[in-house]
């Protein structure tokens, strides 16, 4: 589904990605972990077209996407969420949801003026879908609230709901559970598993090891921009190199957080 080959990306003085290769299989739930600053978000930015890579290749469904702008990557069926909410705050939760669907007729000016009926039909259809999804992420009561008034966790839920409105084939989530309360977290994980059964592919950054081991088929570990391990969640938790990476001073806190025993 998604194939990343030897991707490099550096910022002034730092190699944020140093030859990363990985593959996300169709219909899988794949996790990406690593200490703070290890390059996870950068990898997502490069894959989704928000940052240019310096070297390497990225393929989506066998098609090269590493030269495409982000909107075209999204058009090809890969959507991502942001670690820090980018939700337009002066738009309501519902407006945020309705923004997402691809190929909306009413986004073209000609159609907006001359095909009102069909647009209204499409809008109604999208509205129903939005309300349905909002109830599955438990934001339905906040439908007409400005996105700016949501809590951090609620914004994460909105991001997930919005991306489901766009209905991509592969979904990249950057720390989708940060700030979301534990009970809701569980239902989110169930939602993701259900969607996977429906054919969606997930690739996500997560710090909560419990979440990772509960739902991931495969996990990749980054450290200092390099892939240091890959495998099932069970294998990763035993991996010597992973443990070692986490033993290094700056990562100790993170190791504790994800529950790797140091």
């Amino acid at each position, binding site marked *: 589904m998604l194939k990343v080959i030897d991707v490099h990306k550096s910022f002034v003085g730092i190699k944020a990605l140093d030859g990363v290769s990985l593959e996300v299989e169709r219909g899988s739930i794949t996790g990406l972990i690593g200490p703070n600053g290890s390059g996870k978000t950068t990898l997502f930015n490069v894959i*989704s077209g*928000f940052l240019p890579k310096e070297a390497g290749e990225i393929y989506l469904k066998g098609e090269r996407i590493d030269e495409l*702008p*982000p*909107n*075209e990557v*999204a*058009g090809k069926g890969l*959507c*991502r*969420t*942001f670690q820090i909410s*980018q*939700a*337009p*705050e*002066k*738009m*309501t939760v*519902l*407006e945020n949801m*309705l*923004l*997402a669907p*691809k190929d*909306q*007729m*009413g*986004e*073209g*000016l000609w159609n*907006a*003026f001359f095909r009102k009926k069909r*647009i209204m039909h499409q*809008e109604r259809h999208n*509205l129903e879908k939005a*309300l349905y999804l909002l109830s599955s992420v438990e934001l339905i009561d906040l*439908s*007409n609230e*400005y996105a700016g008034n949501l809590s951090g966790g609620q914004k994460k839920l909105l991001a997930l709901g*919005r991306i489901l409105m*766009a209905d991509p084939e592969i979904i990249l989530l950057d720390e989708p559970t940060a700030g979301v309360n534990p009970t809701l977290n569980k239902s989110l994980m169930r939602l993701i598993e259900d969607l996977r059964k429906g054919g969606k592919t997930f690739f996500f950054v997560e710090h909560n090891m419990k979440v990772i081991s509960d739902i991931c088929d495969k996990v990749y570990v980054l450290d200092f921009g390099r892939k240091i391990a890959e495998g099932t969640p069970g294998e990763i938790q035993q991996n010597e190199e992973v443990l070692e990476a986490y033993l290094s001073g700056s990562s100790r806190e993170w190791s504790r957080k994800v529950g790797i025993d140091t």
Partner: protein
Amino acid sequence: MIQYLAYLSIMTGIYGILSLSLNLQYGFTGLANFGHVAFFCLGAYTSTILVVLVKGPFILGLLGGMVAAGLFGFLISIPTANLKEDYWAIATLAAAEIVRLFFLNEDWIFGRGPYHGGAFGIGGIPRPLQSWFSATTYPFFYLCIVILCLVLTYFTVRFLTNSPFGRVLKAMREGDDLPLAMGKDVSKFRMKAMAFGGAMGGLAGSLVAHFWSFIDPYQFMPIETFVVWAMVVVGGKGNNIGALVGAVIIQFFYSSTLFLKDFIPIDAQVLASLRMVVIGVLIVLIMLFMKEGLIKEKKRIYQG
């Protein structure tokens, strides 16, 4: 007095169109367009060229002015597509000055004869259907034309901002990243907002040229952009009624010198400069105490 009121209403209506079109670009799309007067100027000059030189009818001038200004809006959004907001503001400011300086320096356009062009301006621009009315009734007829244009502009902007198209514009107002991640081609939307808003600004320009029947480049100084901004900011950005209310208020202050000079013993010249100070103070007060302007943006409620 009633004559003056008609004049004031016409100018308010014309500025109302400018305010609505800037509201589409700034209020809804977040485009810091500091060169809005360029549309006004292009609309006025294009319409004048089409009616005076080409001898076309008023309506041709009107449409031509809109097309020229819309095209200009489209064109300036191409090289500026990747500029950050502050640079974008400066680029549009400069573009507007280029348009004005073009008409200031290229005086060959209007040739010789009664029309001088360049710094001398162009006089004798025909007013539509002037022979049908007397000098006292004509302003009321022209007011009707302006109101018609204003109403059409209002409903067009309202329709656009309520459509799925407008939803993308609103999302872009808070940054490109999210709309991009949702697959929206933001630069295309920006171009359309500039072209559409530009065409409306051109309409206002054409209306002003045929009303004054004289234009010169000094009527299109950057300060005009500032006045339109004041209207949007004071009235309430992102609210079309607000943009209109702002136009009424600012136009009132702008024209108040004509009333005040009878009551306040200040030199007319000083008074004319003072009104800008008044408008400036008004903006500062609004920024401090009513950030969203007099009329807040309306929340869009979708009924399930």
